[in-house]
């Protein structure tokens, strides 16, 4: 999962100006200024000028994903709705919308995940006005036919069909379903198959969905590239100033504490055996040390540098690959260790080795040197990836959806810098709990058989 690698290191000094405009400057690792303006309707606008001649990345982050799918039978709807956003308005039919995107020369698309839906286009910065115009039009005036709605549902089914070919997807689906009882993280972003098949019947609900979530208080506009904040703020005012604030706030079910290890299994004789250990993990919170500590711990325990990797992958060759990390999510989710094995006979052995490595860290801690090196690794990993308007926008959008604040990773990395050896031990003890674990497997056997 590359998600772990997206983890940004913002070492920023925040300098707030009066009112609702803010900007931050950098002391070196993130060398670009972040400008923010919050409009009266709740819309947040973020601008990062960046030297990419003639190119701008225009993102709209909507903080609604499969997490918001609280009603039975509606799983997968946030993602489906993302598709519907390309189906036209009264002002621009879908064909006209496509033609404008073509004229902008844009790479444009959208994607949905647990906590958000992101719409993005990167194209000719000289046509920024047009980008704003067509995006505000569909975000405020989306209008599709019943037939268009039913037709698009087929494309979603097609997406599910292509994804289903992967045993990893099948395992992820089962793992979520087993690991969660009440929280909406129980279903994947694609949704349950039966709900996907039923989507064409949900036209009325789709109108409600748009009314609930496509509102300024759920959205952040993010523009990175050959632009100025004045220009972006002015266009935001012009095109999104009249966007009406909504009133809906979903009640996301709280997941009860897990009290025993759970198991998910996919039987497949034509695929290398897989093992994943999924521990319940805390929600992203930059103001506490917990997630920062787990980020460092998982890197120490499961990266290519780790003793476990050297043993299981390089020296003893029990595994073809090994990795792990924590997902940054709005609510408590999972941190995952994954291994691809050579023989299914070693599933229990590998599981025991992983848990022994965790236990060793809990009991004996780690060396100062490895902790310092890990902090350095995380910092440089982020810094060297920020070399295009798109990659900067991707990193910032992550901060925005998980926390609502593009500066959140600044605080988060201060947390990482401040971590002590004791913090690592304490948080390992706090979160690597056998009763909070779901063990997932793929093997030729009918059952996983790993305890």
């Amino acid at each position, binding site marked *: 999962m590359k998600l772990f690698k997206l983890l940004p290191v913002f070492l920023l000094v925040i300098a707030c100006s009066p009112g609702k405009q803010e900007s931050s400057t950098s002391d070196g690792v993130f060398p670009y200024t972040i400008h923010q303006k919050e409009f009266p309707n709740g819309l947040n606008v973020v601008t990062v000028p960046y030297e990419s*001649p003639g190119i701008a990345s225009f993102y709209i982050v909507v903080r609604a994903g499969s997490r918001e799918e609280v009603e039975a039978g509606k799983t997968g709807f946030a993602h489906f709705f993302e598709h519907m956003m390309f189906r036209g308005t009264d002002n621009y039919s879908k064909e006209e919308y496509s033609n404008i995107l073509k004229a902008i020369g844009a790479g444009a698309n959208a994607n949905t995940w647990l906590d958000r839906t992101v719409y993005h286009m*990167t194209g000719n910065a000289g046509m920024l006005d047009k980008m704003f115009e067509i995006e505000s039009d569909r975000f405020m005036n989306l209008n599709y036919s019943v037939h268009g709605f039913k037709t698009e549902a*087929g494309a979603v089914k097609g997406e*599910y069909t292509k994804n289903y070919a992967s045993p990893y997807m099948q395992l992820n689906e089962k793992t979520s379903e087993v690991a969660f009882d009440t929280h909406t993280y129980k279903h994947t972003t694609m949704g349950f198959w039966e709900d996907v098949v039923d989507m064409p019947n949900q036209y009325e609900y789709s109108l409600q969905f748009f009314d609930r979530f496509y509102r300024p208080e759920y959205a952040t506009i993010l523009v990175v590239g050959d632009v100025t904040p004045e220009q972006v703020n002015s266009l935001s005012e012009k095109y999104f100033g009249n966007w009406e604030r909504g009133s809906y706030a979903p009640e996301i079910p709280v997941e009860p504490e897990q009290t025993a290890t759970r198991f998910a299994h996919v039987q497949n004789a034509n695929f290398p055996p897989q093992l994943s250990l999924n521990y319940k993990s805390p929600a992203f919170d930059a103001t506490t040390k917990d997630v920062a500590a787990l980020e460092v711990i998982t890197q120490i325990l499961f990266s290519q540098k780790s003793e476990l990797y050297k043993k299981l992958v390089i020296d003893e060759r029990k595994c073809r690959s090994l990795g792990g990390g924590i997902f940054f999510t709005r609510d408590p989710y999972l941190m995952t260790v994954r291994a691809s094995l050579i023989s299914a006979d070693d599933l229990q052995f590998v599981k025991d080795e992983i848990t022994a490595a965790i236990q060793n860290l809990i009991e004996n801690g780690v060396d100062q040197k490895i902790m310092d090196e890990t902090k350095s690794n995380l910092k440089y990993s982020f810094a060297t990836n920020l070399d295009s308007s798109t990659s900067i926008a991707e990193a910032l959008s992550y901060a925005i959806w998980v926390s609502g604040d593009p500066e959140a990773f600044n605080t988060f990395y201060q947390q990482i810098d401040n971590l002590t050896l004791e913090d690592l031990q304490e948080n390992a003890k706090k979160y690597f709990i056998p009763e909070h674990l779901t063990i997932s497997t793929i093997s030729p056997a009918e059952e996983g058989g790993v305890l």
Partner: protein
Amino acid sequence: MKKQIIRLSILLILFSSYSSYSQELVELKKNKSNKIVLKYMFNTGSMMDPAGKEGLTMLTASLISDGGSAQYSKSEIDDLLYPMAASYYSSVDKEVTVFTFEVHRDFTDEFYRIIKGLLFNPAFDEKDFSRIKSNTQNYVDQIIKASSDEEYSKMALEDFLFRGTTYQHMIPGTSSGVSNLTIDDVKQQYIDYFTKDNLIIGIAGDYNDSFKNQVLEDARQLPPLVKTLPKAPQVPMPEGIQVEIIEKENALGSAIFAGFPISLTRSDDDFAALMIANSWLGEHRKSYGQLYNKIRETRSMNYGDYTYIEWYERGGRVQLPLAHVPRHSNYFSLWIRPVQIADQLKMQYEELNQVEVGHAHFALRMAIREIDMLVNNGLSQEDFELTKQFLRSYIKLFIQTTSKELGFLMDSRFYGRKDYITELDQLLEKVSLEQVNEAVKKHLQVDNMYITIVTDDSESLPLSRNLLGNKTSPMSYSNLVLEGLPEEVKSEDEEVANYKLNVKSVDIIKSEDTFK
């Protein structure tokens, strides 16, 4: 725009060849960048794998990039590079192998000292060999067939289209080819084909002359090229449409890939003309294409439908083209993402419980008919202008990162160009509608092609009978979609369902019999 012109001019000035060395050098100086990118592109690829040793070049490259050097083991290198978060990897295609090294400028010299041994003094350790070979074998035997039916169908098409040539086998190899490989084969391949005489070096970012000179000096340690580099195979056009259906258990849909050879590459100025027509027809992962509009948006049949005039690496994952897959032997291709099979339609909709064949036949007819109409009617002036405008901006997105910009510059050399993206923009600016439509007539056709379909074992036989018999293939909509379907769509469906495909052969192959 002015800024862009100045930038490109600077680039051209910086862009130089070093005639005093046998290697070529491509430079991309970026003083504001916080990193260094170093690339070694060897004119050697899977095409150089000896018969019976398919996969040798990739295993050799992997052993360099995922093994140790004479000085450091793989684990020692991982330890040393860890605080730098440096990355390095190899990529192998049919004709080139590229090693890419990236690191923050804070560590340039230290990083280079550690990694240079990988390329110039690789350990070729028996344990590393065994580990990487086992993983490659597993990829060829299991993972490619069980992870993504789309990727599987693409690899199967190359196997079909280039059959009997050095382009046929997958880059990781064949099952028996990988099985036959020895550590001595790897050592010999390294000496034969990873030489200073078939090498282009690329450096980008914030580096100084002393670093550059050291890189050039060290590369002279590589052995000289003694072997004659083989030429890429040119394959004949197939006779009629030839289909291979690969059947497997528990597939939810039919994944389709089709293609036929074309004698055109980035070297040819006509490439820009054909690129415009192709973009209009089926630009990769864009909702603007004609096929996307007809098959996905109007008929709800799948997730997307695209066409290509050159190989598009990792098309299932990336939205913009990657560097380092330059090829002399080229083909036009059609990608129809998985469509529904009969068993699934029956299960989902009671009104379709009599359906015998899923949507694959109809989708193929629809896509091929659109290509046919493009060949016969050409692009309109309006579509031509809009697509040209799109591409002239869009191609700049190919080189957004330092690594990709350097990569595309290096690939330019393969095609005898200096700077492909800049030159392409100039060609696009100049090209006329007549030239585009002439290029379409010259290079595209619908009577002869190879098609591979990966599908469920319940679908393979009825589908093969339908294809071979050129039977009518009415589109089977659910009532939900059918009730709102415009008359013009129904009427077009009638024509599509009876559109003749020049099918000459259809073979069903079991999944376990592929890539042997």
